[in-house]
């Protein structure tokens, strides 16, 4: 019996967002990346081909938590003190499509580093790698608002993706992105209504919807994954149904979130029944990413080189099936 595939067509289309700018476009990147553009749910080539397959960004931080487990610290040990060297290693050794630079050190509870230092770090990383840059603040609203304008200015013209804008704190970042030609990463707390509201507010300030990437929440396997998965699915369905305020590509920051899970962190001595920590940690990150790819993630941000390798294989396999 032949099974006829059900084909679905959608009235709407997901916007495309380009990150990075070449010299001809006013930046210094050797290459740019474009995400989004989907006319169907992920990996359903008979509905519509995937114009821009998902990408892997690797997280690089200017300060890391002292309680990082050894099996996460080990492969990066030689570069943890230098964001530029760390970024270079991610691109050259692990093939990262983008670098996601987390500016943690300005946080008052961390090093309270001045905005100038953060701007210098951004410039150093831009000079070290040819790929486009995602830049994250420290999450302290007042400090982020001091840091963001300096950072976007230091990267002026590079068309970075800067975040995260949240409903309680987005105006300064929108103004900075408008002034210096960057895209914005808009985060909602696993809530489709708030995500839409935030996009409306950002576009009301003059940033076009084609310069917004959505970050629909923070979750990991065992810690809210299914909530974020279903919200991402709802966002993507609304976008495909024609809601322009939800028709943006999506990014998920899995890295630090997955590594908060005790299943990823605990050593073999602490949890012998769970097996080798060196496998368990990366697997936790990769499994989370695999789920989010299916719900529409266009960029997944990862930390461990092993999870990066695994997720790159997953994407290659999904795209290969898609093309067959």
């Amino acid at each position: 019996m032949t099974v006829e595939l059900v084909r679905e067509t959608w009235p709407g289309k997901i916007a495309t967002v380009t990150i990075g700018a070449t010299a001809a476009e006013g930046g210094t990147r050797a290459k740019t990346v474009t995400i989004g553009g989907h006319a169907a749910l992920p990996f359903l080539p008979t509905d519509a081909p995937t114009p821009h397959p998902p990408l892997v960004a690797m997280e690089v931080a200017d300060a890391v938590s002292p309680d990082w487990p050894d099996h996460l610290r080990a492969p990066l040990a030689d570069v943890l003190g230098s964001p530029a060297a760390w970024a270079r290693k991610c691109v050259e050794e692990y093939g990262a499509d983008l670098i996601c630079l987390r500016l943690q050190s300005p946080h008052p509870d961390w090093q309270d580093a001045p905005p100038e230092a953060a701007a210098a770090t951004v410039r150093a990383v831009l000079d070290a790698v040819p790929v486009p840059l995602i830049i994250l603040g420290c999450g302290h609203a007042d400090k982020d608002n001091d840091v963001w304008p300096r950072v976007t200015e230091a990267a002026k013209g590079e068309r970075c993706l800067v975040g995260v804008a949240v409903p309680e704190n987005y105006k300064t970042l929108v103004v900075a992105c408008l002034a210096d030609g960057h895209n914005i990463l808009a985060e909602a707390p696993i809530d489709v209504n708030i995500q839409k509201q935030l996009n409306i507010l950002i576009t009301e300030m003059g940033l076009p919807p084609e310069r917004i990437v959505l970050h629909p929440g923070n979750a990991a396997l065992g810690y809210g994954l299914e909530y974020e998965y279903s919200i991402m699915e709802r966002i993507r369905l609304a976008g495909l149904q024609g809601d322009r305020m939800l028709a943006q590509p999506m990014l998920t920051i899995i890295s630090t979130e997955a590594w908060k899970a005790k299943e990823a962190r605990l050593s073999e001595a602490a949890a012998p029944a769970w097996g080798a920590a060196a496998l368990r940690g990366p697997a936790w990150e990769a499994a989370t990413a695999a789920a989010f790819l299916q719900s529409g993630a266009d960029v997944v941000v990862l930390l461990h080189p092993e999870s990066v390798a695994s997720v790159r294989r997953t994407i290659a396999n999904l795209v290969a099936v898609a093309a067959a």
Partner: protein
Amino acid sequence: MFVIGERINGMFRSVARAIRERDVNAIADLARRQVAAGAGALDLNTGPTGEDPTEVMTWLVETVQEAVDVPLSIDSPRPPVIAAGLRACRRPAIINSTTGAREKLDALLPLAAEFGAGLIALTIDERGIPRNAAARAEIALTIVARTTEAGLPGDRIYLDPIVLPVNAAQDQCREALLAIPSFRALCEPAPHIIIGLSNVSQGTANRSLINRTYLAMAMALGLDAAILDPLDQDLMDVLRTAGILLNQEIYAESYLQRRPA
């Protein structure tokens, strides 16, 4: 909700003047304002004109599609005028309108096929306006049988249950609403269901209020398209809100700040 803007109609005095003087700016402005207000398509009707209506329709189509890039609804009782309009359209248009009368269907079905156009079909026939919902459904069935036979897919049909003015035929307002759910199941993919909204308030003192109340009721019953005045802000707010309440669009605090996608 698919909104067809009704304002470019020679029945309006200002439009009649613009047509007479071939005032491109006036027509283009009216087109742009309706699209900006949320119209997904624009209805073009020459109104009664002393000139050759085919020529006027061609001019309207050319003028409007220079200004905006949305589908056009070619509105005329005369098939040759509709044919002229369709010929001038750069993208697939909508024919406004046929009825269930054999003569009308014979004239317009070939045009819909030739130009890949949508077809608005009023549920009236040679016997005139139906008395109740059941009679409307019966004519709708005849229409769908003919369009299916002609190879027109269901989603290019816009069935209109015929809305009459509340002050002239009060009982018919309810009958038209009750006909809506019965239209849905007539074919697969389901036909669109459309009304010419402003008819319901013709000659009344509270036109906007009556229009928007009726629109909300019809949407709840399955209406998915309407010919209306998108420049009526209160009406468009009700349309957006009804879309939220019917789970057709995702709620956000500022949902009214954005025009429908």
